[in-house]
């Protein structure tokens, strides 16, 4: 079937659609992807990204249109397609009980890779992924980053001409993400075509071309730079710290379609094509240095998906009461250590968090962020050290502490078989709220996080973004003094993420201390202070500015990624020096 077209196009989709029951997950997708491209598919949760990937991998049949991959029809010649591609699905697609080597060998053998060739590629791949030293370890003990790299290797062992990667760097720390991209570029140079989906805007800009997918529709396909250009002229920044006034402006002026707090400035996007109106310009200039800024992919996304819903009622108007913390620090941690057998997960951590402070916790997979949060919540007893939450000692009065904290895990732990309202009422009841107070609390929290009108839907059916908001609602309903968020935004699309951070800042302004762990370095801008962790140690703690200037050669204008990498490299070097 080697027509000339199929030589040029690795993937051709014509009017492809897919329904699940009455729900149309994808409709009329036309797409052509050429040889040697790195092609990114960007879109919010529930946009149909995974469905599209499964259609391309020929493991799902379209209900409309047709799709040719490598010149073969994905329905009639599915076996031909699957014989030639590599497909990495969203979850971890490794066998936990098999070692790194065995996972690779299995993958090679089911694809009939000759032994000699396998040995040669295995060596090259493991080296590239930095997994040589781990090749005998079972997959289940690997960190998230290593698992992703191994998954990628198992899909590269037969050197497929097309690689389909669903949510490549979901839950992967920035260091491992770098390794993954290095591998992808190497293979692209050898002629492999790569199609990937990603929630990271910065990652999307590494692609040759991008497709924006929204509610099952293809909104735009273009190069990242061309896409960014589409929002040019709509984005402005004002350097200010006067948050209340800015908040008031965004409520007042409908032309502001979205806004975002960065470390020291507010970045706003206006309705397409217009300069700010005179009164708005005046007010903004009064706040601080004001001027146009370079648009990024998020801006284009906002522009393409039309006005986001979060400009409506701002939570201030819904009777938010500030949380009372009686003068003491919200969190005091002294000398916390956790050991699992011989392994030290946390090594002598001490820090304080003030009321109303948002503190971000960054570090590679396995650095101990989750363990730290579990210790602070009382889910994990520390081997040594003391924790005081809102002035109460965790060890001596665990029940009193529990009433003052809120916790949201990275899995958005909800009861999938309960409806939204049932989940809310249940968690309200757990905090012993009376019937009357419970009704008020549920009503209040629904407006605060913006989940009105979906009371009857089952939590398991919600998209990631809504589940995230519901989980947050369940965690703050009793107005805790301290809120712990463990990777609260992983797997959630950029818009939902931005809206989520607005909420967090709002809660903090009302006096809630928020401790959050994340892999998204861009989120560091939302935090007052940052804690960097590596190997169970707290290697740095301070504001972004402090971190920048604390280095031997201060990086005053460095972006978060450079800063993070520098600190991690320094930490590893120190460790090396010690051992």
């Amino acid at each position, binding site marked *: 079937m080697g027509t000339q077209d199929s030589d040029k196009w690795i993937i051709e989709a014509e009017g492809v659609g897919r329904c699940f029951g009455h729900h149309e997950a994808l409709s009329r997708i036309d797409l052509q992807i050429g040889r040697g491209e790195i092609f990114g598919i960007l879109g919010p949760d529930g946009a149909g990204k995974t469905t599209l990937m499964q259609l391309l991998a020929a493991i799902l049949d379209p209900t409309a249109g047709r799709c040719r991959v490598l010149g073969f029809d994905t329905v009639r010649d599915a076996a031909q397609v699957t014989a030639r591609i590599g497909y990495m699905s969203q979850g971890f697609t490794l066998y936990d009980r098999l070692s790194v080597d065995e996972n690779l060998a299995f993958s090679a053998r089911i694809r009939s890779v000759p032994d000699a060739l396998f040995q040669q590629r295995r060596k090259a791949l493991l080296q590239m992924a930095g997994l040589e030293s781990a090749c005998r370890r079972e997959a289940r003990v690997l960190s998230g980053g290593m698992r992703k790299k191994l998954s990628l290797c198992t899909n590269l062992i037969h050197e497929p001409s097309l690689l389909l990667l669903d949510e490549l760097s979901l839950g992967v720390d920035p260091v491992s993400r770098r390794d993954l991209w290095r591998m992808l570029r190497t293979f692209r140079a050898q002629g492999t075509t790569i199609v990937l989906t990603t929630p990271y805007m910065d990652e999307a800009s590494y692609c040759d071309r991008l497709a924006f997918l929204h509610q099952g529709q293809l909104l735009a396909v273009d190069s990242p730079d061309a896409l960014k250009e589409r929002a040019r002229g709509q984005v402005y920044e004002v350097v200010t710290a006067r948050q209340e006034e800015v908040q008031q402006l965004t409520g007042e002026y409908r032309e502001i379609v979205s806004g975002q707090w960065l470390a020291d400035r507010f970045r706003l996007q206006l309705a397409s094509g217009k300069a700010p109106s005179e009164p708005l310009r005046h007010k903004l200039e009064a706040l601080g240095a004001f001027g146009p800024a370079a648009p990024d992919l998020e801006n284009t996304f906002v522009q393409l998906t039309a006005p986001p819903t979060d400009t409506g009622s701002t939570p201030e108007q819904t009777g938010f009461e500030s949380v009372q913390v009686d003068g003491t620090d919200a969190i005091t941690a002294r000398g916390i250590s956790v050991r699992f057998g011989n392994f030290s997960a946390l090594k002598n951590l001490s820090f304080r968090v003030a009321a109303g402070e948002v503190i971000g916790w960054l570090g590679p997979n396995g650095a101990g962020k989750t363990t730290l949060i579990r210790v602070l919540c009382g*889910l994990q007893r520390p081997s040594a050290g003391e924790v005081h939450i809102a002035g109460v000692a965790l060890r001596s009065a665990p029940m009193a502490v529990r009433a003052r904290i809120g*916790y949201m895990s990275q*899995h958005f*732990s909800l009861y999938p078989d309960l409806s939204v309202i049932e989940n809310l009422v249940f968690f*309200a009841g757990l905090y012993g709220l009376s019937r009357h107070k419970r009704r008020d609390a549920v009503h209040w929290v629904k407006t605060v996080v913006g989940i009105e009108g979906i009371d009857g839907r089952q939590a398991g059916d919600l998209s990631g973004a809504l589940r995230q908001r519901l989980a947050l609602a369940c965690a703050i309903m009793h107005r805790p003094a301290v809120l712990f968020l463990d990777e609260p935004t992983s797997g959630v699309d950029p818009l939902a993420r931005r809206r989520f951070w607005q909420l967090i800042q709002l809660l903090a302004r009302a006096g809630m201390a928020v401790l959050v762990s994340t892999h998204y370095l861009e989120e560091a801008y939302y935090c007052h202070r940052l804690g960097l962790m590596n190997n169970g140690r707290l290697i740095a703690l301070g504001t972004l500015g402090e971190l920048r200037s604390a280095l031997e050669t201060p990086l005053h204008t460095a972006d978060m990624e450079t800063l993070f990498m520098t600190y991690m490299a320094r930490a590893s070097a120190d460790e090396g020096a010690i051992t």
Partner: protein
Amino acid sequence: MRLSSLLIKELIQFFRDRVILLLILWLYTVEVVICAYALGLDLRHLPLAVLDQDRNAASRLLVDSLTSSESFRLTGFPQDMQQAEQWLQSGRTRAVLVIPPDYAADLVRDEEPTLQLLLDGSDANTAATVRNYIMRGLIFYQAGLGLDVTPSVQPVIRIWYNPDLTYTRFMVLSMIALAALMVGVIHPAATIVREKEFGTIDQLQVTPVRISELFIAKTVPTLLMGTLSVFPSLLIVWWFDVPLRGSLLLFVLLTALFLLSAIGIGVLIAAACRTLQQALLLSFFGLFPMMFLSGTLAPIASMPSALQYLSLLSPLRYYMDVILGIFLKGNGIADLWLQALALAGIGLALYAIAAAVFHRQRT
């Protein structure tokens, strides 16, 4: 307040889980009915072949007399010994009655003709039954001929509580007990482990909820459902003519106590397991010995003493006494207090161990 919240949530989840509801319904109804109809130790229609080497009126009379009852089904007349043997071997028949060539002549001469009965001993139970039936059949036949056959002391058997010794009554009641046990163990185990898998258990543990409250919330729905499903099964019981001689209230109360100990097993399994697969396999591992050591399938008295002691740990053993006692014998609490005490003791011990396991895991 917290407890009622937990309870409401558990109840909602319980009734939303169709698969589980279907399973419970299936176990309490279809399975009970099928087993009651199908399974019995009261053997009927035993396959019997006759090698009649005499072939006259006298021998035919004997055969007719033996096979006229429900006990035997005549599978045919093999031609010779070799064929008879082959029928036994292939399982075409379970027993062969051999009538000697001079049977009629011997009878007339007042001698004692010897009949031969060949039995397939591979099914020991059936073989023993066939022999008994044939012996009784012969006595009956000879009495008909007017011969004096009565033994010197005549046993008169009276079976109490279950006079026709139908297996059905026993089967119906024991299947209900089994259903209660399976549901009682598997359901709480599965729901608790599911919370572990979804991570919601962590979410609960950062709220002021206590382990005891969690246990109670997990126990009540299964307890309620298990106790309520007793009532539909009473219909089946009634359908199969099983009498209820004792007090219904006592039965319901003791059923609840039994469920409590079964749920205790489930909770303990859940405390020890991390994944659903482990919990399911372990429940399996626990359920079977309990079934065997309950007296449901075979008499406990016949077991080796080690197993008899082990059977003291099986709540099902006590519950079988309870359910059979109340239905068939009309036992009251005066007769069953020991069983009630044992059930309560086992239940409490299980909960205590489970709570300890939960606490230890948090360090």
